[in-house]
């Protein structure tokens, strides 16, 4: 299986090496009166692969969505490569590739057209665009489905195509929300290979998952979230962030409701 990872600006030396890839300080997000995140302070070293663990509703997806700039934090701060996600989301978006639960694909476009649209918006240079798309389709095992409309894809094939979109980016930070879900064994092996390749390329990766056993060979450390707060940090590459909390904080530690 051909597998090419495109080197990120950070790997090319655009960011100070000591700057954490991800830093959060008392990060909180409310939905109504419920706190999905209730004060998370973390620091992830650049180039490391870290698993986000926890039960459903623990705050894994919310943390990833804040880092991807899909939603804004209610309190606290989050930075990617030293850039505040709330203050400069436009700069952060160029550094992050995010695989969410939803695939974000267009049903009436073909597999290749979906990737071509993504490549255009990701500013993949026009002369190499078609080659990159063909290469990506081969990597995700969908070359034979390139001309088929996504409407006719299975859930696993849609997930693979969404992974292909992540591959077209040149991120410094890859955020994956349950990447093994909906995939068959071959698809899960593809995710494993990508995790290994991103690690090898020095690209920071945060993976939310329930499958720690599956992730174990590819991760440096892990964070377990419970009710929106950090319950446990293990391994290397991730640590509590000792930066002082801001003027506004939330009561931390007891439950998801405030």
């Amino acid at each position, binding site marked *: 299986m051909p597998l090419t990872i495109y080197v990120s600006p950070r790997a090319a030396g655009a960011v100070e090496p000591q700057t954490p890839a991800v830093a959060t300080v008392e990060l909180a997000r409310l939905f109504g009166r419920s706190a999905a995140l209730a004060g998370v302070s973390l620091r992830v070293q650049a180039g490391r692969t870290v698993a986000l663990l926890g039960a459903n509703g623990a705050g894994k997806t919310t943390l990833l969505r804040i880092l*991807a*700039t*899909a*939603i*804004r934090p209610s309190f606290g701060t989050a930075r990617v490569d030293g850039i505040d996600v709330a203050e400069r989301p*436009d700069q952060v*978006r*160029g550094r*992050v590739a*995010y695989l*969410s*639960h*939803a*695939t*974000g*694909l*267009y*049903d*009436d*476009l073909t597999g290749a*057209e979906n990737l071509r*649209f*993504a490549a*255009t*918006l*990701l*500013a993949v240079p026009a002369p190499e665009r078609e080659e990159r798309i063909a290469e990506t389709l081969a990597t995700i095992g969908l070359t034979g489905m390139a001309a088929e*409309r996504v409407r006719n894809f299975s859930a696993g094939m*849609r997930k693979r195509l969404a992974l292909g*979109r992540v591959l077209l980016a040149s991120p410094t930070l890859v955020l994956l929300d349950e990447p093994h879900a909906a995939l068959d064994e071959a698809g899960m092996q593809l995710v494993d290979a990508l995790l290994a390749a991103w690690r090898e390329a020095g690209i920071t990766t945060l993976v939310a998952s329930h499958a720690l056993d599956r992730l174990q060979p590819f991760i440096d450390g892990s964070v377990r979230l419970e009710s929106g707060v950090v319950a446990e940090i293990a391994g290397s590459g991730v640590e509590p962030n000792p930066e002082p909390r801001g003027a506004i904080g939330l009561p931390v530690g007891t439950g998801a409701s405030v």
Partner: protein
Amino acid sequence: MTALAAEARIAWAIARKDAVSELRGRSAASMTLFFAALVLLLFGFALGPDTRKLAEAAPGLLWLAIVFAGLLAVGRLHLLETDDGALEQLALYPIDRRAIYVGKALAGFVTMLVLGAVMLPVVGIMYGVELARAWPALSVTVVLGALGFSAVGTFYAGLTVRVRAREVMLPLLLLPVTAPLLLAAVKASAAALSGDPFGELGSWLQLLAGFDLVMLLVAGASYGFLLEE
């Protein structure tokens, strides 16, 4: 590549993607045209068989049909983004959000132009209106009207796309704002069809152009905030 050229390239990609999706969902596109024709037919029935009365009402009915069908069209261009989180994904690309607005508005503009191009001859045939002499002025009116409706419609479609009652909210919010456009487009069309005896066509077209410019600038500057969650 300059920033402007990059924005234009992205806007074009978005408009093209919307157009391809719209054309492939042919039933929805043809249903919109059918709906507009049905509106004209029903108004015709309501006004009765008096051909003079029908001809007098033709400009207003033409634009009501275009606006009603346009409501469906601009709404649907945003509904394309609700499939499986596409809108959130679109908002996460490292692109200027004005380019998203321009792309969506461009797709809406082309759809409205097609609507206008089909509805004009339908009005001519159904209401017995002579279009041959008036077509250059009518074409300008349709272009300016389509641009204005798409400019403001794209904004409100983006505003309501995440709302549960969006089918109701979109017309409730959009129609009052389009009142000046509707008035100017109807008056310009009526002036064009009557040979412009009072020399008012230019003023109405200027009003349409001004509406378009203001809406494009305001909606383009504000649209990015609609994508925030």
